[in-house]
């Protein structure tokens, strides 16, 4: 009989338990049961088209035979770049921080036409597809790994050989605070016109969505000044260059049976750039300034076999500083998850941008409009208000 006395309280506990469980189950499934398709990724699919020109200038040293043949040097370059998120995974840790893993597919295509007065036209192309891994610890750090295999070829002359290379970067980025960030890593890059293994050292003072000074060795130094929510002005100094295959059709290399050699270039561009955010999905930028240390080198592959660093060139000269002009269009596709004030995602976007060939990505970081709320229509706030608000 004693046991029977406990039955009502047992029933109350059981009922309570089932209500709790069913509420829990219902609460977990209420959103899921709606089967709403939400954006998976934090990164937009982004494609950009970049046009870069440098007028030709005469070589400083004209006593050299090859310089006499080349006469002048300038650049016409058109590049196409894209990145697309492939995989995003969020994980909430015990203390409530949200960590996420991102894998992006990247690709770039460059058509470089070095302008030599004394040579026929050469169209040097570079094409690569790679993978990028970004891990946001949710606290202070972001890990970034990029692997970009690519092929270079002088497509004007079918007899020239293609050459396969791999550029890669690993960086750890640490947000000490909103206004201060440091980065440390290593990069294998051809940006300086050679195969180099360099440390990656970075520093940023100032918030990414406000005025900030960013130093990303070996790539760039920039002072970025948002002007409202639509325009960003950057004053920057940036190294640019690469290593390409060049047909020996003009017999620049004395061994005439060698059909291809390596053409490398680098320059340091210092100037100003305006980024215009025309719409959410379309931006463009214009940049101009002074291009200095305009250096080109020609390396024979045979003379540099199995060397990490190409150190035997048969020609290396520079031309006087010149102006450069840069214009680019950036398109973004798809919807992303919100990341307002999520400083680690901002940092991940910035890292992703730093590794893009034409820095085409920071337009994803939202800026606060200067204008106050005015002239809104219902369409613009329909996600914000419920009809119960009216």
């Amino acid at each position, binding site marked *: 009989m004693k046991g029977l006395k406990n039955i009502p309280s047992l029933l109350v506990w059981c009922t309570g338990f089932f209500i709790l469980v069913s509420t829990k189950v219902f609460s977990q499934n*209420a959103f899921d049961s709606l089967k709403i398709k939400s954006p998976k990724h934090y990164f937009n699919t982004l*494609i950009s088209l970049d046009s870069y020109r440098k007028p030709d200038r005469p070589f400083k040293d004209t006593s050299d035979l090859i310089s006499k043949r080349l006469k002048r040097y300038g650049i016409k370059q*058109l590049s196409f770049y894209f990145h697309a998120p492939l995989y995003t995974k969020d994980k909430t840790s015990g203390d*409530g921080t*949200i960590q996420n893993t991102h894998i992006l597919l990247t690709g770039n295509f460059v058509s470089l036409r070095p302008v030599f007065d004394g040579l026929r036209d050469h169209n040097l192309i570079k094409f690569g597809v790679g993978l990028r891994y970004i891990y946001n610890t949710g606290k202070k750090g972001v890990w970034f790994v990029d692997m970009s295999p690519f092929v270079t070829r002088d497509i004007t002359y079918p007899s020239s050989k293609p050459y396969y290379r791999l550029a890669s970067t690993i960086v750890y980025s640490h947000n000490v605070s909103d206004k201060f960030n440091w980065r440390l890593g290593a990069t294998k890059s051809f940006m300086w016109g050679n195969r180099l293994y360099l440390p990656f050292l970075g520093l940023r003072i100032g918030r990414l969505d406000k005025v900030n000074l960013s130093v990303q060795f070996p790539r760039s130094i920039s002072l970025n000044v948002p002007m409202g929510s639509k325009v960003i002005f950057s004053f920057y100094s940036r190294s640019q260059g690469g290593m390409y295959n060049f047909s020996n059709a003009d017999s620049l290399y004395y061994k005439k049976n060698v059909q291809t050699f390596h053409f490398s270039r680098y320059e340091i561009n210092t100037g100003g750039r305006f980024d215009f955010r025309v719409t959410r999905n379309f931006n463009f930028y214009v940049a101009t300034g002074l291009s200095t240390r305009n250096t080109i080198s020609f390396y024979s592959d045979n003379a540099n076999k199995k060397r990490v660093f190409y150190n035997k060139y048969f020609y290396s000269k520079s031309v006087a500083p010149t102006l450069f002009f840069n214009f680019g269009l950036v398109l973004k596709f798809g919807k992303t998850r919100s*990341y*307002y*004030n999520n400083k680690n995602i901002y940092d991940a976007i910035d890292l992703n941008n730093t590794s893009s060939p034409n820095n085409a990505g920071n337009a994803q970081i939202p800026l606060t409009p200067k204008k106050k*709320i005015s002239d809104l*229509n219902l369409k613009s706030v329909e996600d914000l208000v419920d009809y119960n608000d009216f």
Partner: protein
Amino acid sequence: MRFILHIFIFLALVNSSSAFAQNQKDKVEALRVDYITKRVELSSAESEKFWPIYNEYNDKIKAIRKNLRQSYRKGPENLSDQESEQLYILFVQSKQAEVDVHKQYNDKLKVIIGARKMVKLHLAEEEFRMKVMRSLNPKGEGE
């Protein structure tokens, strides 16, 4: 190369077709986040955890409302009885989902910023909503 340029321009035109409304939405969202940041006075450590969760919470609420709004587009006079019944169920489910999401995420946020700042947050959200409502109807005229 011209071919690529033409494709690019075509994509830009297609991609920017609904840009105006989207730009306005982004502007309102950025202003709202800015307003909340100023009013709630989050510390750096709180901010680090708060915004990823708050954004997720917000995305879910917006997604529920958008889903329901889209389902109502057809208009009641064009609905069959069965469709009306389905829509009614969807309405109830959506309201329930909103409540659940509010509860689930507010509990998470409270752990991070505490009850006092949660009150500040709710007030800031409400104040901002009122500002938006006033901007839609600045003279306070009702229909």
